[in-house]
């Protein structure tokens, strides 16, 4: 089985500072793969590199064997990669369901003429998209908010909404950047359940997360970053037993 996501010798420098340096790993399809590490370890930068928001200084990222390091985020979405953000990126000028329907963008073929005159093909597509979006909102657990303005929703609900939007694009791999940040214990438990359900559908999940209990519970493999470099890689058991990791977390 080939790796779905493959990262080879990836580096990124801002000015003279190396945020990510010589990082390599690979993620197999269907895995839950987590990236952990202390604050400033370069986790979010790594995600930004993988999803095309940053251009790497050197190294490459492959998705399904194809090099994607130079592609724009929207090109990656077309290839089946989608993500959420540590600082949520919700369109506050839209309703909740519209945000999720935005995720259906690639599956909705529309041209200007059908749009301007609102021809039947468009309304059909819209109806289907709305149903799918509602279904996904139910799935992530914010089904009661359908036509609520995004700006009127709670933090926790918005976090779920963002996941629903990412799923709406029908990705092969979804990258979640600190999904549990700011959630309470009950919400975190629900999130763990949700991530499991996503993985069960065969979607590969990559995770940046601080909540160790959550990460250790659901991850198939983990990558530990420290100062932009790989400190360790392996299964939760291997990581737990790794002396470098213990030193970094406890002594560092």
């Amino acid at each position, binding site marked *: 089985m080939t790796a779905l996501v493959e990262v080879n010798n990836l580096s990124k420098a801002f000015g003279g500072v190396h945020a990510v340096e010589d990082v390599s790993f690979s993620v197999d399809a269907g895995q839950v793969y987590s990236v952990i590490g202390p604050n400033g370890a370069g986790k979010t930068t790594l995600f930004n590199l993988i999803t095309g928001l940053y251009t790497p200084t050197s190294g490459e990222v492959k998705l399904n064997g194809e090099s994607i390091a130079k592609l724009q985020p929207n090109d990656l979405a077309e290839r089946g990669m989608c993500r959420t953000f540590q600082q949520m*990126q919700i369109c506050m000028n839209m309703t909740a369901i519209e945000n999720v329907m935005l995720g259906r963008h690639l599956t*909705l073929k529309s041209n200007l003429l059908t749009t301007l005159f609102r021809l039947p093909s468009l309304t059909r597509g819209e109806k289907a998209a709305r149903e799918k979006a509602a279904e996904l909102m139910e799935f992530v657990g914010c089904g009661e908010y359908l036509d609520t303005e995004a700006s009127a929703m709670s933090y926790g609900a918005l976090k779920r909404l963002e996941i629903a939007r990412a799923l709406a694009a029908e990705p092969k791999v979804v990258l979640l950047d600190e999904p549990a940040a700011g959630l309470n214990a009950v919400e975190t438990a629900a999130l763990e359940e949700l991530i499991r359900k996503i993985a069960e559908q065969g979607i590969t999940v990559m995770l940046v997360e601080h909540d160790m209990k959550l990460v250790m519970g659901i991850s198939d493999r983990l990558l530990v970053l420290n100062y932009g470099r790989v400190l360790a890689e392996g299964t939760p058991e291997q990581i737990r037993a790794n002396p470098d990791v213990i030193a970094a977390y406890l002594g560092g």
Partner: protein
Amino acid sequence: MMAQFSRFRLKGLVFLAIVVFALPLFISNPFHYGLATQIALIAGAVVGLNLLVGFAGQISLGHAGFFGVGAYFSAIMTSNYGWSAIPALVVGAIGVAIIAWAVGRPILRLKGHYLSMATLAVGFIIAIILNNERELTGGPDGMPMPAFDVFGWELSVFGQYSLFGMDISGDLAWYLFAGVILLAAVWLAQNLIDSPIGRALRSVHGSEVAASVVGVNTAKYKSLVFVISAVYASVMGALYGHFQGFITPSIASFDFSILLITMVVLGGMGSTIGVIIGAVVLELLPQVLADFQEMEMMLFGLILMLTMIFMPKGLLPTAANYLNKRRSKSAGGDA
């Protein structure tokens, strides 16, 4: 029933249609028809600009340039080359679309105020050309423009027409025509907003990053909406010219560009009916302030400034917000 209507997608359009067609019951003065016609046509351009500013969050400081090109192209082709009004209007709009695309495409890849700078420059260059090409445009003194014609039938403010057996004056006929054009402009804009393309546009404003990670090619949508809004301006400009019967480069001026975007912001960015209210207010205000003579400019500036400070979201959204709050308060009281 009421609740159903308030959720209806095109409630704004219905409301607008009622206003447009009821207005003749209250006015009979041809001057007021003239004013209303003018407002309707400018409002049409503003509805188009709102797609760019209100929904996609991009600022154009040169939209009057497109309005001017539309008007002048139609004027030149109809009066100097004997074209009919509709082909002139269509070809003009295509020309404007090409200009907008050529300017917008490279610029819209960037973020921030770059589009506003580029549009400012384009607007000025257009105004300078209109001003200098005396042979074609009559220069700063302007040029006359023939009545609007469709297959040999002419629509002139000075004419007399009969509609469904009723005799109507040219002023009223033009008003009704402009009203229908505005309704069409609003309908098309609403359809655009309420679609995958519209969501993509709004997401560019809401969160460009979010838009791109779900696959929206933001640059493409930004150029698309820029072109559409420019075409709106061009078409409305051509009609405005036909209505006025005489145009000068002031319709392509920076001042007018500023006025257009002010209408959008004052009325309420992102609210189609709101920006029309913005157009109505800013066109009527000078008529009201005209009596203040020397103080007109100062008062206009003051009113504009205060409105924007105290209602930063614009007139309509602020009013709607206020009403909603009151409604929910009274609802809360009931419960």
